[in-house]
C-alpha cells in the first residue's frame, strides 16, 4: 500500500520497480507483485466482463464462418473451408453493402460535421434566446432513433401527406411537384434523416471546443486588425482540430453501425442495405449462419484496419488532454 503512494498521483508515470539495487530483492519483488495484483483487482471484473461478452462472440463468429451452417438445412452442417468467404467476396449484394456503408458513413459524418461547425460558430456568441436555440438544436438527438426514422418516413417523406410535399403544395399551389422522396433517392433520404440526428451531436462537441478557446487571444488579434476569416483560419481552426477529429471519430463509430434507419426507412431495399442490415438479413431472415458469419468476419477485419488508424488519432487526442 504505502510503497505505491508516491506513484499514485501520476497516472502516466512508470510504476516504480524497486528490485534493482535493493538489499533484499526477493522480498521486494514479492511485495511489488502483491502490489501489482492489488492494483489489478479492481480492473478485473470489468475487463473479464468485456472480454467474455464483446470478444468471445467474435471468436465464435470466426469459427462459424468456416462452417456450412444453414438453420433451414440442419443435416448439411459441416466444415466449409473458405466457401463462405468466396461467396461473400463474389456476391454483388455484399459489395453493394460495403459501398453503402462507406457512403453512408462518409456522407453523414462529413455533412454533420460541416453543419455542426457552422451552427456551433453561430451559437458561440451572446444573443437573445441563445439557451433556447441550443435546446432546440439538441432536440433531434434526443428522439429515439427508431422513432426518428418513423417520423421521417411517414410524417415527412410520405408522398401523399408528408410535410415535405405538403409544404410544396403550400408554396406552389395544387399543381406543385409531389416527388416520392424515398423511392427517388433512397440513400439520400436515409442520409438526410441521419444528418438531422447527428448534426446536434457534432454541434455540441464543437461548441464545447469553441468555448474552451482563449477568447482574449481572439480579441487581441481583432484589435490588431485581423479579419474574421484570418482569425477563423489561423486561430479557430487549429484550436478546433482535435475537437473535429474527436467528433468525427465518435460519430463514425456510431454511424457505421447504423441499423435503425436502414431497417425502418427502406428495410434495406432500393440498394440501401448497409453491412449491419445485410448481416442481420442473412442471419435472421435467410438463416444462413455460415455466410452471415463470414460477412461478419470481413466487417471486423475492415473495422480493425480503419480502427487502428482511428485509434492512433484518438491516442494523440486523449494524450494531449493529459496533465
Amino acid at each position: 500500500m504505502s510503497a505505491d503512494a508516491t506513484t499514485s498521483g501520476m497516472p502516466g508515470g512508470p510504476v516504480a520497480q524497486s528490485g534493482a539495487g535493493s538489499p533484499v530483492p526477493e522480498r521486494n519483488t514479492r511485495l511489488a507483485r502483491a502490489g501489482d495484483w492489488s492494483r489489478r483487482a479492481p480492473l478485473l471484473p470489468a475487463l473479464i466482463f468485456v472480454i467474455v461478452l464483446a470478444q468471445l462472440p467474435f471468436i465464435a463468429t470466426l469459427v462459424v464462418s468456416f462452417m456450412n451452417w444453414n438453420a433451414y438445412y440442419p443435416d448439411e452442417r459441416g466444415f466449409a473451408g473458405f466457401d463462405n468467404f468466396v461467396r461473400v467476396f463474389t456476391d454483388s449484394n455484399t459489395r453493394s453493402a460495403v459501398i453503402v456503408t462507406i457512403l453512408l458513413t462518409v456522407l453523414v459524418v462529413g455533412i454533420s460535421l460541416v453543419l455542426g461547425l457552422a451552427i456551433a460558430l453561430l451559437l458561440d456568441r451572446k444573443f437573445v434566446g441563445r439557451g433556447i436555440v441550443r435546446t432546440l438544436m439538441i432536440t433531434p438527438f434526443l428522439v429515439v432513433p427508431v422513432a426518428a426514422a418513423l417520423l421521417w418516413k411517414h410524417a415527412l417523406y410520405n408522398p401523399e401527406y408528408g410535410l415535405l410535399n405538403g409544404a410544396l403544395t403550400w408554396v406552389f399551389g395544387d399543381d406543385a411537384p409531389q416527388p416520392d422522396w424515398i423511392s427517388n433517392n433512397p440513400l439520400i433520404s436515409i442520409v438526410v434523416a441521419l444528418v438531422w440526428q447527428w448534426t446536434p451531436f457534432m454541434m455540441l462537441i464543437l461548441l464545447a471546443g469553441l468555448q474552451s478557446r482563449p477568447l482574449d487571444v481572439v480579441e487581441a488579434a481583432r484589435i490588431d486588425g485581423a479579419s474574421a476569416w484570418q482569425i477563423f483560419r489561423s486561430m479557430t481552426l487549429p484550436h478546433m482540430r482535435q475537437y473535429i477529429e474527436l467528433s468525427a471519430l465518435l460519430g463514425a463509430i456510431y454511424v457505421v453501425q447504423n441499423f435503425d434507419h436502414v431497417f425502418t426507412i427502406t428495410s434495406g431495399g432500393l440498394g440501401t442495405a448497409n453491412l449491419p442490415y445485410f448481416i442481420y438479413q442473412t442471419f435472421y431472415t435467410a438463416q444462413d449462419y455460415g455466410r452471415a458469419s463470414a460477412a461478419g468476419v470481413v466487417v471486423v477485419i475492415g473495422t480493425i484496419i480503419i480502427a487502428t488508424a482511428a485509434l492512433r488519432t484518438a491516442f494523440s487526442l486523449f494524450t494531449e488532454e493529459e496533465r
Partner: protein
Amino acid sequence: MSATSDGTVNETGVLSATRADGIRRQWKDGAEIAPAGREPQAVNHAREPRSHVLLTLAAWMCGLLFALPVAWMILTSFHKEEDAATNPPSLFAPLGVDGYRAFFDAGPWPPLLNSLTASVLSTILVLLLAFPAAYALSIRPVKKWTDVLFFFLSTKMLPIVAGILPIYLFAQKVNLLDNIWLLIVLYTSMNLPIAVWMLRSFLAEVPAEMLEAAQVDGASLITTLRKVIAPVVMPGIAAAALICFIFSWNELLLARVLTGTVAGTAPVFLTGFVTSQGLFLAKVCAASFVVSLPVLAAGFAAQDKLVQGLSMGAVR
C-alpha cells in the same frame, strides 16, 4: 503595441498566471492605452449591430429548422387521423388525444417497462463495474494502463452485428432468448467502455496531493472515496449514467433479434406499430413521442452532462 512589454512583466510577475490570464491582462492594458475612437474600431461599431442581427436570425432559423420535425410530430400526435393525413397539412385542425388513446390501447406498458428495466439495471451494472476499473486506470494505475484503456475503446469499434449470431445461438441453447436479463447484460457490455473512459478522465483530475494527505492522515479507503474522490467524480458518474441510459433505451438491433413477446422493448414495439393498413400517422407520432419522452426529459434536464457523456469525458 504594448503587448511585448506587458507580456514580459507578466511572465516575471505572477507565477501562477495562466497564458490566458496573461493575455487578458495584455489586452485590457492595451485597450486602456489605445486612443479612443481609432479608425478600425469606429468602423466596427457602425457595422456590428446589423451583422449581429443577421447572425442571431440565422442561429434562430437553424434552431427552429432542426426542431421543426419534432414540433410537427407533437402537433400531429394531437390531431385526428383524418386531419393528420391531409395535403396540404391541416395546421389548425382540432386537437385531441385519440392518437394517444390508440397507442395506449395497443398495450405499450410491458415494452415500456422492459425498456426501463433494461436501461436502469444495465446503467447501474455499468457504473458498478466501471468505477473500480477506472480507479485502477487512474488513481492506482496498473502497468500499461493506456493499453487497457484503448482495449476498452477498441471493443466499442467492433460492430455489434458481427457478434450477434453466437450470442443468439448461445441464448437459444441456454433458454435465455426473450429474457430481459440477456439484454441487461449485453447493454452493460455495450456501454461499459464509454463509462470506463468517462470515469477515468474524471478520476484523473483528483488532486494527487489530496490523496496523499488523506493517506498520511490515515483515512480509510471509504473515507477517501467519500470525501476526496466523490466530489470530483460525481459529475462524471451523472454524465456516464445519462449517456448509458440513453443508449440502452434507444437500442434496437439486439432487442429485435434476441427478444420476442415477453421481453420486447419499446423500440421493438415501435417497429411493429405500422403494420396495419389505413390511417395511422397520429398514432405513430403519439407512440414516437411517448417512447422518446424519457430521453428528451433526461437530455434537456442535463444538457451539460450530455456533452461530457457524448465525448466520453474528453470535453468538459
